């Protein structure tokens, strides 16, 4: 997996912001998983791994659209409704990936959400990490979640929440009470992807996608 090592911006606030957006945007995708509406996804592996929310993926395999408008039929590698994550694969290579943030999110840290709120393609919204907390999944598993004050809307789901260095700190998942945005931390994402890929390796070759949970 290729990670982009972020360089410092040069000087002004706006230039730094611009550099950040230029760094992250190439890895943002559109994921058409339902008949209506679409979510976001991020390029997780240069060989075609796409990460998104489970709820963005419907019953059929989604169509993934990249920044150059190329569209790919995807294969569903794994999904987990309990952490609301799904891993897709498209027949592409040499894609631009994002680096995961190496440290845990800190309260007050500036963050940016990339996605397609209300279908507005490639939108960026800004906020800070409000708090980190743990939530219980329906299976009773405790997972950390990030709450931020970044404005999110339908269409942001599956998109990245990045820090000022353009590193992924989470995947935007939902909105509570209109103004509280929830993201799945990248640590949970990494664990999910690793388990999904190791199961994938041990599995005999299949021609059809595997729609059930792998966890």
């Amino acid at each position, binding site marked *: 997996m290729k990670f982009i090592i972020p*360089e*410092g*911006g*040069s*000087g*002004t*606030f706006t230039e*730094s*912001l611009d550099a*950040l957006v230029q760094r992250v945007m190439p890895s943002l995708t559109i994921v058409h998983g339902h008949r209506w509406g679409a979510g976001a996804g991020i390029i997780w592996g240069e060989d075609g791994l796409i990460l998104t929310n489970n709820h963005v993926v419907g019953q059929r395999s989604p169509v993934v659209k990249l920044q150059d408008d190329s569209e790919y039929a995807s294969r569903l590698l794994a999904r987990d409704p309990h952490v609301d994550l799904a891993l897709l694969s498209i027949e592409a290579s040499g894609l631009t990936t994002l680096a995961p943030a190496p440290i845990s999110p*800190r*309260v*007050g*840290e*500036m963050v940016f959400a990339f996605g397609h709120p209300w279908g507005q393609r490639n939108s960026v919204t*800004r*906020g*800070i*990490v*409000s*708090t*980190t*907390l743990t939530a219980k999944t329906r299976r009773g598993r405790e997972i950390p979640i990030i*709450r931020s*004050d970044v404005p999110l809307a339908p269409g942001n789901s599956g998109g990245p929440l990045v*820090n*000022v*260095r353009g590193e992924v700190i989470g995947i935007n998942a939902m909105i509570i009470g209109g*103004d*509280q945005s929830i993201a799945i931390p990248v640590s949970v994402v990494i664990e999910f992807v690793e388990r999904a890929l190791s199961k994938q390796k041990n599995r005999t070759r299949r021609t059809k996608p595997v729609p059930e949970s792998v966890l």
Partner: protein
Amino acid sequence: MKNILVELSDALVESAERAGDSTVMVNARRRIPASGIVYTEDLILTANHVVERDEDISVTLPDGTDLSASVVGRDPGSDLALIKLERSGAYPAEPAKMPARVGQIVLALGRPSKNGIEASLGTVSAIGGPFRTHHGGMLERYLRTDSIPYPGFSGGPLVAANGTVLGLNTSGLTRGAAITIPTDIAWKVAETIAKHGHIRRGYLGIRSQAVEISIDAQKALKREQATGLLVMGLEKDSPAAAGGLMVGDILVGVSGSPVTDHDRLFAQLTGDVIGKSTPIDVLRGGQLQFVDVVIGER
């Protein structure tokens, strides 16, 4: 090369950490706890409306220590309450040296749970005031920001990017929408409550109504002032009656400052003037006269 975005983000993190050390959880109502600002090592300043009871109050310090606390005093007019910890050990907040400015980047902080400090980013949108609160108080100034007032943020601080406190956030004065009481005002109220147990307000003892001042009378006044307060009645044995104010006088000033309406008079009758002989400017029979009144306490 320096990245200003990284620097700003790091500054916000440090600010939340620093001011978070002086932001406590106040448990004094039925629904979720609210927040408070450490005023001194054993005094917590918070929003009055979140202190629903006078007993069985507890405060959780940033390190997780639970302390019981008691109410020192309240000022419902500015929605502030001061509570005292059973023992000292809290880390006092540092007030900002400069008042807040429109456009300034700020953090609203709260500690409504034991999960740690919570923050929301915003900018100072407007500075307003004076504002007559519906609890009979008067806020000389207040701040509006576009930060999100999360549940339980009332009583918590609005902080500058350097971690100093610009004010106290409350949603109790404006029916839901949050405003911020600037630090200088909040600290002054805290100081008064700590000293006297309550907020002192001056008292004249008149019933009055705003009236227009005729052009001729304005000439006698030697200034342009379109309105004053017509004295309609005097409370028995009131400071105004003792000082010689009469029904029919038009009150136009206190201590030389023009009084054009009730809010202006209210603003003049602060705790500072209680017990002091204060010159009241009145128009009596079209002539300007000065009546010395020893202001009482309400």
